[in-house]
């Protein structure tokens, strides 16, 4: 005879996951000091950003101190420097030259240029040869086309027809291959046509008095041009535009000589991205660090307080599947962190914009800025989830808070005392990599890209969360 074991007929109605999330949300919003902490996190961040905006009176963009900063667009800083030797051209023209030799490093540039005016930022089109990166065609800040991989001696040709500039290259001056064409609608009837040389500043790391400083040291480039053949309505006299013009540059480093069809040009300064431009958005958003400290403490307490007060037993009674409780907590605290981070970032940005910081902040709706603002929210959310997971693993508020703050704060601060190579690795490998999402400008000191940095922090948060879920099932509550 078999007997069937008794089974209760009462229907089990465990809380659905939505109900769990609502329960956790209720826990968060019904503790007045927690809500206060969130509000304080946002307010303090915005306040510090405002104070910093007041304190950021002067621009110390570094670099070689040569010439004014050339900012077409603060998000894609571009330097329009170099030494340009030119004649005035009326109407269409055809410029041909052979670059015989050049020196100044792998990215030294020598070639032909047509531009609307001398001022940096004016419309231009240029074809050039580099010692190690072949022939290139540049126009404005965005056009940069690669030609063949030839080095000097090589022939270059630039033709202007109406407002269309076409660049060609040739190994022998007979067989021409196109490099690129660009339409410059704003080109006036009288343009400047001629030869230019440019070379990027050399990034030099110097260690003295216990700190390392990076500076852009001016490099000099010299190119020898031959078989000069300019056709069109050209003024006979030559003019020149030197750059940089700052006090750091002595006159004898830049100059030119013309003899018949041979021209030698020496100059400094680059035509290309400016790696020393300040990142105003990132500087403004640094203040969110203060709010982040408060959010981290809150996220740790969100779980450790339950252990201390025994509330966790009630939570597990309601949902015996413990992992779901922790996941619901992660969703709630992550959401709160995202909201606080985004509000703090938006507030800081708005206050700093209104305060008129130097350098000026870019437009809010440009993608790098939006990425930085939304990314700050995601970063705070990921940090909150990391803190929750660490709190769940350690169950001890003080130690958990100290550990997470250590992981996020100290790399930022300690990095300044370390040599740059070590500091870069600290900024890549620790959870503090998440702050990279606040970058909006490509600079010489970028350790990790914005998305990659945020991914590092999210990976830490995910790993800690997975470990916490695994441990939680194996321990008493």
């Amino acid at each position, binding site marked *: 005879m078999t007997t069937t074991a008794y089974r209760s007929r009462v229907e089990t109605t465990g809380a659905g996951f939505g109900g769990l999330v609502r329960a956790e949300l209720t826990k968060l919003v019904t503790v007045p000091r927690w809500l206060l902490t969130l509000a304080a996190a946002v307010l303090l961040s915005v306040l510090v950003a405002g104070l*910093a905006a007041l*304190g950021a009176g002067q621009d110390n963009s570094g670099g070689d101190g040569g010439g004014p900063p050339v900012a077409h667009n603060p998000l894609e800083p571009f330097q329009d420097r170099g030494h340009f030797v030119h004649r005035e051209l009326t109407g269409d023209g055809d410029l041909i030259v052979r670059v015989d030799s050049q020196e100044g490093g792998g990215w030294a540039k020598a070639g032909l240029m047509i531009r609307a005016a001398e001022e940096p930022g004016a419309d231009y089109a240029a074809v050039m040869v580099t010692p190690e990166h072949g022939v290139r065609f540049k126009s404005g800040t965005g056009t940069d086309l690669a030609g063949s991989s030839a080095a000097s001696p090589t022939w270059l040709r630039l033709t202007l027809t109406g407002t269309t500039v076409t660049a060609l290259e040739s190994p022998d001056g007979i067989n021409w291959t196109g490099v690129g064409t660009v339409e410059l609608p704003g080109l006036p009837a009288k343009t400047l046509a001629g030869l230019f040389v440019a070379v990027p500043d050399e990034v030099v*790391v110097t260690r*003295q008095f216990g700190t390392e400083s990076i500076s852009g040291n001016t490099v000099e480039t010299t190119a020898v041009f031959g078989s000069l053949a300019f056709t069109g309505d050209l003024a006979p006299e030559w003019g020149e535009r030197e750059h940089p013009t700052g006090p750091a540059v002595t006159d004898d480093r830049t100059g030119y000589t013309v003899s018949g069809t041979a021209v030698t040009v020496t100059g400094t300064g680059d035509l290309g991205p400016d790696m020393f431009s300040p990142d105003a958005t990132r500087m403004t958003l*640094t203040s969110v660090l203060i709010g982040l400290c408060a959010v981290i403490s809150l996220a740790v307490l969100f779980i450790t307080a339950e252990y201390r007060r025994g509330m966790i037993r009630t939570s597990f009674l309601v949902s015996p599947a413990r992992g779901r409780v922790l996941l619901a907590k992660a969703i709630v605290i992550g959401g709160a962190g995202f909201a606080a981070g985004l509000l703090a970032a938006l507030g800081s940005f708005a206050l700093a914009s209104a305060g008129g910081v130097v350098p000026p902040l870019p437009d809010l709706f440009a993608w790098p800025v939006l990425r930085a603002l939304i990314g700050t929210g995601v970063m705070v959310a990921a940090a909150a989830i990391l803190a929750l997971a660490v709190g769940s693993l350690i169950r001890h508020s*003080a130690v958990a808070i*100290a550990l997470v703050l250590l992981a996020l704060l100290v790399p930022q601060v300690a990095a300044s*005392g370390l040599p740059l190579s070590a500091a870069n690795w600290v900024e890549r490998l620790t959870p503090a990599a998440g702050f990279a999402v606040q970058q909006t400008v490509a600079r010489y000191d970028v350790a990790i890209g914005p998305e990659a940095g945020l991914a590092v922090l999210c990976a830490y948060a995910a790993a800690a969360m997975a470990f916490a879920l695994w441990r939680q099932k194996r321990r008493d509550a």
Partner: protein
Amino acid sequence: MRRAIHAEWTKLRTLPSTGWLLAGTVLAIVAASLVGILSTDTRHCPTPAECFEDTVKLSLGGIRLGQIVVVVLAVLAVSGEYATGTMRQTLIAGPRRLTVLAAKAVVVAAAVAGAGTLGVLGSLVAGRLILPGNGFTEADGYPPPSLADGPTLRAAGGSVGYLVLVALLALGAALVIRDTAGTITAVFVLLFVAPIAGLVVTDPEWRELLDRFTPMTAGLSVQSTVGLDSLPIGPLGGLGVLAAYSAAALVAGSALFAVRDQ
């Protein structure tokens, strides 16, 4: 007073977390110092002799990390009693509140000073052994750190003093706030606000104010042994700024401790 100190010592000694935290302090100081020592060499110097590296300060870099553990230890010594309710028994046994507080401060300071001394000595030994291999040789003007040397002794003793003052600051703050999480966060923000704001503030005058009058940057200037003229604040003056913060926190903490219900 002797009995109060004995009681506080027993409480601190028998907490399992104390041993871990003190060991963690030593470990954090030495490990972080090692990172700095191992990763610094004369490669980027104009010449090794023109680097003007402060090898003592470099060797003691781990104090920045060690202070975090010290803060946790000091805060727990107070807020732990509030969290568990031990504070009531403590005050029944010793109703003179200021005596209790003084005993607590003495015990915590002594424990931190002991761990700090070990960490500082370990860091200096590491610097002494490793730095000559990285190009900071005696011939180039970097004698191995020795406590017989006045400035080095000041930097080493000052670093221990720095940790003790940070512990007292945290102790005072914990008496005011009484909550573990809140106190730790507040002390961290206070300590790190200047380095963080330093990343944002570019105005030289503001920066100098921050460097001179915030607890961490001012206090750590005691580690400098060369180039004292270019410091925003002198070594002992800087430690004095931190001492003023600690004193303010202790005064506020003891005043509230004396008048509030426990």
